[in-house]
């Protein structure tokens, strides 16, 4: 019964499949080993060039995100693996009305790993129920984008040596900023971190995010960047998302609410770092780019390395 045993082997392999759908899918131990592996990769990337030889990653971007797609695809290629995918989501069987469950069943027969970006929240989780191979969530609507969080953590760990004991200023759109919510919950897993939430009153952190972390970790909620910039070890800036606003005037007012410039940077600690998930708008002036405390371009580079480590970890190649 070839068919039966084939089905059986899929079911068996499913038992051991690990996914990365939400940040908490990785334990602190998993994170530790992924970060250590990332260190090794950064040190000698060549050494890993055949690790994923003959492995195939399906890169399913049902919504365009060039930046994230390139980062994942480059990660897989640098591990010696191959990538299958599509250039235009409108030509896929999804667009022709196939269910996501069926698409997943079929593709997980071809690939060793699936990365998925979808405008629908919970899409990656839904796929993981039908997949026989690991699923990585590369962003599901406004819900989660866990590899961005992984990138942020890796950058903090690199520039500040540890992930604990920091005062972290989070500034900008704290209401709708998905990466910010994930980062806050990720950093709250490490001891002795303190948060200063800096936002216009209209864009304050939602209660459901604030209530989910240890309240003693919240130092202050304020709307003043200038008053707080000298107190923080890490300043995480974010942009105001236009699509969240009905009124153009309101958007423009809030977009330019905070502008980090050289003048403000004078008040910051010598070893403070400025981060940003990019792309930025006006919230960081170009004059800050040359400040050595500005690490947002470096931060993006860690994204590829940490994705390499994540792929290896989920495929048990670590």
């Amino acid at each position, binding site marked *: 019964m070839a068919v039966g045993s084939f089905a059986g082997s899929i079911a068996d392999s499913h038992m051991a499949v690990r996914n990365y759908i939400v940040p908490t899918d990785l334990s602190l131990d998993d994170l530790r080993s992924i970060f250590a592996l990332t260190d090794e990769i950064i040190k000698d990337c060549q050494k890993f060039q055949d690790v994923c030889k003959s492995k195939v990653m399906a890169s399913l971007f049902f919504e365009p995100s060039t930046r994230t797609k390139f980062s994942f695809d480059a990660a897989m290629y640098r591990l010696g693996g191959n990538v299958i995918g599509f250039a235009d989501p409108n030509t896929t069987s999804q667009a022709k009305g196939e*269910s*996501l469950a069926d698409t997943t069943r079929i593709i997980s027969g071809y690939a060793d790993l699936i990365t998925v970006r*979808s*405008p*629908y*929240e*919970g899409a990656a*989780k*839904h796929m993981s129920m039908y997949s026989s191979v690991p699923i990585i969530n590369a962003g599901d609507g406004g819900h989660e984008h866990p590899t961005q969080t992984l990138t942020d953590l890796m950058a903090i760990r690199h520039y500040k040596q540890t992930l604990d004991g920091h005062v972290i200023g989070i500034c900008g759109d704290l209401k709708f900023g998905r990466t910010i919510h994930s980062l806050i919950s990720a950093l709250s897993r490490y001891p002795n971190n303190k948060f200063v939430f800096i936002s216009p009153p209209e864009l304050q952190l939602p209660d459901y995010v604030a209530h989910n972390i240890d309240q003693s970790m919240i130092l202050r909620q304020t709307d003043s960047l200038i008053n707080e910039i000298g107190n923080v070890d890490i300043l995480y800036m974010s942009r105001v998302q236009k699509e969240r606003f009905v009124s153009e005037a309101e958007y423009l007012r809030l977009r330019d609410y905070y502008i980090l410039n050289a003048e403000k940077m004078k008040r910051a600690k010598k070893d403070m770092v400025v981060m940003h998930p990019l792309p930025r708008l006006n919230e960081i002036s170009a004059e800050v780019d040359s400040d050595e405390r500005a690490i947002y371009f470096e931060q993006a580079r860690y994204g590829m390395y940490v994705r390499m480590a994540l792929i290896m970890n989920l495929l048990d190649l670590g």
Partner: protein
Amino acid sequence: MIYVDSLNEGIVIDHIRAGAGFDIFFQLGLDKIDSVVLLMRNVPSEKMGRKDLIKVESNFELNLDILGLIDPNVTINIIQDGKIMKKFKLELPAAVSGILKCKNPRCISHREEIADSMFYLYDEQKRYYKCEYCDSVTWL
């Protein structure tokens, strides 16, 4: 009172919030069972002013999740040989499926045919549940 009091075997769902009885009747699928079922509405009650009440003359499998979700304040009486064998209050279920719908229009559960998506209790006081897919908060 009436015929109902002579219930020998079955279940009495008491202290239903007045007006909710009809909803519970259908949600439990009582319109589909063969046994004698009685729905009483606006029954005078000392505690509640008015209440609804349902009696079912059979020991059918009661979906306590549905009941708990619609009205967690009801009392269940299990009747055997004309006596109340068991009487208990309900609790909000920790997880439910098949009753709630996610309120988030961008949720994958509206895009795909997902019949029984899970919802997990999030805020007991407000009776809020969280969607297993998108984590959005929803309620009945």
